[in-house]
């Protein structure tokens, strides 16, 4: 089973009321070092078998047409999370169509 992760964030110019609420709460709990918070969404899409380039392309299309609204959000990552984890561990098999964050 393969798994694709899609990260969606509110556009930088759009006020993020959820992030603002979290940013307001952190200092009250002693986390004063965080000057700003933005809250986005992470989707994990599972497929039978491996995450092929076709699967990633379909995930990219789903991310842009359903999982995000381009008026208010940006798709910031569409990636095979197994490959991503391997890349983090030093392998060269990473398959990602977006910038890893």
């Amino acid at each position, binding site marked *: 089973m393969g798994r694709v992760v899609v990260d969606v964030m509110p556009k930088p110019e*759009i*006020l993020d009321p959820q992030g603002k609420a979290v940013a307001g709460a952190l200092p009250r709990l002693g986390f004063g070092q965080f000057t700003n918070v933005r809250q986005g969404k992470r989707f994990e899409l599972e497929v039978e078998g491996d995450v092929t380039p076709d699967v990633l392309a379909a995930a990219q299309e789903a991310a842009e047409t359903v999982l995000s609204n381009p*008026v208010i959000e940006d798709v910031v990552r569409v990636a095979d999370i197994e490959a991503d984890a391997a890349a983090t561990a030093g392998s060269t098999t990473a398959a990602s169509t977006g910038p890893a964050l």
Partner: protein
Amino acid sequence: MRVGVVTFPGTLDDRDAARAVRLAGGEAVALWHADPDLQGVDAVILPGGFSYGDYLRAGAIARFAPLMSSIVDAARGGLPVLGICNGFQILCEAHLLPGSMIKNDGRTFLCREQVLTVQNADTAWTRDYRAGQRITVPLKNQDGQFVADERTLAELEAEGRVVFRYADDNPNGSRHDIAGITNAAGNVVGLMPHPEHAVEPGYGPDGATGPRTGTDGLAMFTSVVRALVA
């Protein structure tokens, strides 16, 4: 004059919208999201609620309902379509109207009687108002802040497509105090406040003649019913 009222999973205000249609002299026809058949209606209302829980984004999943394809096609052909609250959000997600709604800037669910100014009394849904008229209808939502890029806002203003603006104060941070807009043809209108909750004495907002006497929302429905009769 048969006006279709759509029910999605999570729709709340379909019965109120149907009642508003009947009080305006029309016949309300229940439409189901999964059935693409518009049943030959003369106009369609997408009522308020929380379709599919609004979990992805408000209106994002409802937009892909089989019935929505029929509505999008018919709207492009001139069918009058009104989206109220969640219905407005669905119309934006379906690209029948520009922009989008995000969470209220005050970060709270709002429920109040809201004064609006009618900006455009020439749409299919606002002909029984006059431009500049102040009306009071309920407002109740979590994601009511209308946003769009500067170019879209300039276009809406230049073409007179802002239909309703929040009067006196802006409750949710909406750009340009926008409460409702229309498409270029004037047959598709979306607004966040709820005219269908201000159509019957005894159940509306407080009015000039006493508590709960406000019926300022009724003209929205008579506008389309009378136009269809004429």
